[in-house]
């Protein structure tokens, strides 16, 4: 098992790591870790110590069967995750973020595209183990052909974690008749003095939007690609230009 200390921003080629890796994030300045080339099966653990701000950007475009991410977040520390998931075929992604001390924060943004016969299950859970913690999950998906996409996950606020905030938002756009999208955002709350919300939207691309765009001369394919890009676009801010171009190219291929 790899144990890596992180003190500065860097790219990590995951294919060079063992199947299980632990990262201890110690940086004083805000840092950005970009993970590429995920292995078919891997477990990644992050310890984000007090007062650290970690941006974790993950781009997957190969096949990943199983990915498990766990993170422990310290006092006044923050993990901001951008996950661009363009993996293929069967895939199970589990993320579990523990907000262990006061003022710990997790913001999670994920965009996922499924096509062909892909079958993806993505579960993101946040545990609010201390007061004044903040959690936000945004999962966006585009589901095409005969693929399946499931978003699930739990925001768990344990008793005593007062004045904590937890929001979950799951949206899936279903493109084709054989595609199945499903979203189950769950809240488990054992404390009264908190703020929490969850929302889920699963639906097809709007006919009115398609008519509007095509009536201006865009072909049906161009219109769909522009709308898809728009749906997955919020994730792009987490990546540098080179990866943004790769993401654009994948969406272009899949229109």
């Amino acid at each position, binding site marked *: 098992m790899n144990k890596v200390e992180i003190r500065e921003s860097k790219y990590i080629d995951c294919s060079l790591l063992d199947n299980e890796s632990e990262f201890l994030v110690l940086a004083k300045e805000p840092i950005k870790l970009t993970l590429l080339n995920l292995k078919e099966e891997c477990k990644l653990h992050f310890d984000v110590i007090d007062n650290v701000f970690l941006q974790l950007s993950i781009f997957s475009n190969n096949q990943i069967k199983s990915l498990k991410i766990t993170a422990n977040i310290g006092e006044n520390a923050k993990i901001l995750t951008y996950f661009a998931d363009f993996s293929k075929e069967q895939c199970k992604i589990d993320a579990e973020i523990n907000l262990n001390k006061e003022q710990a924060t997790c913001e999670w943004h994920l965009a996922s595209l499924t096509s062909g016969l892909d079958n993806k299950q993505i579960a993101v859970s946040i545990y609010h183990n201390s007061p004044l913690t903040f959690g936000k999950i945004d999962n966006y998906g585009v589901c095409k052909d005969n693929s399946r996409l499931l978003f699930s996950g739990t925001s768990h606020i344990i008793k005593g974690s007062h004045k904590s905030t937890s929001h979950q938002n799951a949206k899936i756009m279903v493109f084709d008749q054989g595609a199945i999208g499903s979203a189950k955002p769950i809240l488990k709350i054992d404390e009264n003095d908190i703020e929490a919300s969850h929302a889920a939207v699963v639906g097809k691309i709007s006919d009115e939007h398609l008519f*509007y765009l095509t009536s201006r001369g*865009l072909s049906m394919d161009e219109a769909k690609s*522009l709308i898809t890009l728009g749906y997955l*676009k919020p994730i792009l801010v987490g990546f540098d230009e080179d990866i943004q171009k790769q993401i654009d190219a994948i969406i272009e291929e899949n229109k």
Partner: protein
Amino acid sequence: MATLKIKNLHVEVEGKEILKGVNVSISEGETVALLGPNGHGKSTLLNAIMGHPRYKITQGSIYLDDIDITNLTPDERARAGLFLALQNPAEVPGVINSDFLRAAVNATREEKVSTYKFYKMLDSAVKEVKMPFDLATRSLNEGFSGGEKKRNEILQMLLLEPKIAMLDEIDSGLDVDAIQIVADVIKQEKEKGRGFLVISHYARLFDLIQPTRAIVMINGKIVLDGGVDLIKRIDQTGYEFIKTELGISIEKESSNMNEVSIGSCAVKDAIK
């Protein structure tokens, strides 16, 4: 000179016949006012001409420049030179207005415009409709006010330079200053020879743009096609004279029409 010819057009929306044999033609350089009571098919005609998939043509045909466009897709009709400014333009989250406009400009031209040329075009069009430039860089119509959406429609028309532009209640939701701006653009485009088919319930817009012809749609048909004095007459006396002079009884809006208000499409509400 381009001419849009509609011959015996019958259109159904979700199984209900709305247009029952429309005959009309509009040429480049003409500005035609389309009048008629709510729920008689004005918006349906415009949507059917543009090729909205919900509006099914069951009989008749549409020609542009003697080319049959009845079975073309909306994008093919746009490339042929038609444009429809929608009554309620959709908000499309995530699609950046300027990306969309550039894709549209490139789709409707033989040669692709360079980034530099496009921004010059956009900059001058934005100034013409007096729209803040930042609206061009935001998500398409998302969070725009009613007036901003309508100006964005006119902006698209300026960039796409259609042969015939159809405007569906372009003045609803506009304040006095914005109506003046939109009317000025229409007048100036009119002089360049663009053809217009304009729906409005307010004589004020027609006073400003001065149509060259007026047509009246009742019961899904064009019953009058004539001079602009019709506009004034209808504004002052309503549609009663059509019954007394032409012997056409105006079908009452069916009882479930009471949800219809200004700014909504009467036909869409009627078939809910």
